[in-house]
């Protein structure tokens, strides 16, 4: 793990990269990284996240700034800008059931090729997907979803990069931290190693590549 400034962290991300971003309606989203992506104008991004929050919050800022080429999400209903840009053909949107999205991300991080889910069978979600039967029940094969970077926000990080999330700010964060080829963590609080007890670590330090320094 390397401690970096937010400027250094975002400089590592090329335009056109695919980013998994933690958060649920901007709760648990790394806002400093988002703001710096906007400042450095990294465009052509593919964003994989639960939602696009609201205009002015979290991923909503990337959408407003026109930096996003494609969104893979489960819900965009609370951000009218995302919907407008989608209908205007300025933004590609792939909608995925939330439980399927998180399993596809997890599969990538856990070295699985995919999972079989009953969700979406018989609906428009099944289009173009393989269907398999197990014990007489039909499932869709949903394949692993990879990304160049995972950007996570944790409540605590220690000096090694162990991360602890809290309350509903955990959401997608620990799962994307396993799936991003490189992982950049932004912590609300950096604490001495040992402050987070072993049972409270949600993301083990060895999967974290960069930790944002304070300031």
């Amino acid at each position, binding site marked *: 793990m390397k401690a970096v400034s937010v400027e250094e962290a975002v400089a590592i991300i090329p335009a056109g990269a695919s980013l998994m971003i933690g958060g*649920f*309606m*901007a*709760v*648990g989203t790394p806002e400093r990284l988002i703001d710096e992506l906007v400042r450095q104008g990294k465009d052509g991004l593919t964003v994989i996240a*639960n*939602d696009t*929050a*609201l205009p002015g919050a979290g991923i909503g800022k990337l959408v407003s700034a026109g930096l996003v080429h494609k969104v893979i*999400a*489960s*819900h*965009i*209903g*609370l951000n009218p800008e995302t*919907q407008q840009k*989608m209908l205007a053909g300025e933004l590609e*949107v792939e*909608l995925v*059931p*939330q*439980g*399927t999205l*998180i*399993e596809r991300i*997890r599969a990538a991080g856990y070295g699985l090729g995919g999972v079989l*889910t*009953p*969700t*979406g*069978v*018989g*609906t*428009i*979600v099944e289009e173009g997907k393989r269907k398999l039967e197990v014990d007489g029940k039909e499932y869709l094969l949903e394949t692993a979803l990879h990304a160049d970077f995972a950007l996570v926000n944790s*409540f605590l990080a220690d000096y090694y990069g162990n991360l602890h*999330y*809290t*309350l*509903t*700010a*955990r*959401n*997608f*964060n*620990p*799962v994307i931290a396993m799936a991003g080829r490189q992982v950049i963590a932004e912590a609300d609080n950096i604490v001495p190693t040992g402050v987070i007890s072993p049972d409270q670590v*949600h993301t083990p330090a060895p999967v974290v590549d960069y930790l944002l320094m304070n300031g």
Partner: protein
Amino acid sequence: MDAQTIIAKRIAQELREGMLVNLGIGIPTLVANYLPAGVHVYFQSENGLIGTGPVPEPGMQLRLLTDAGGRPVTALPGACTFDSAVSFGLIRGGHVDVTVLGGLQVDQQGRLANWMIPGKMVPGMGGAMDLVTGAKRVVVAMQHTAKGKAKIVRQCSLPLTSVRQVDLVVTDLAVIAFPGGRATLLETAPGVSVADVLAGTEAELVVPDQVPTMAI
């Protein structure tokens, strides 16, 4: 009693001690206000919480603790939090005893459409498809009609949320279930006649000899 209160009160009667319950946004959220006295249920927010409590007192909000709509909530003693994979494991895996969701249309075999109007409203399915596919019991909370048009229809014109048949539809006019795959009138709302329900319903509705009034 207004339409929303009728629906919420009636659905609250479906909840039993110890159940794990997921309430959608809108009318379903109101169900929590009418829990039978002494009954303790667990409310799940799919963003990663069991034990969701009411809105916090002024000044006590925490940005790190919200419902699935991003609004501040509280956590009751005995609450627990988890990541989204666990949250949807609970949902898809059949651990949620009851989910209450809004509806745009329900067909006469009990299949729900509630996540998009092509060309008009494409918010995304969020957790709805997993909830309808995986919860032990699916209850739909909706107005019986929208702008005078029936919402309980022969066939959904809107994209389905799941091919799984829902268990109960509760509207401001009626309670409907789908035994044997046929829409069946179970109860009418106070002051509503069977004829009123039939007039507002496009689907073929089985009407038993006796149709009791909702005990709300």
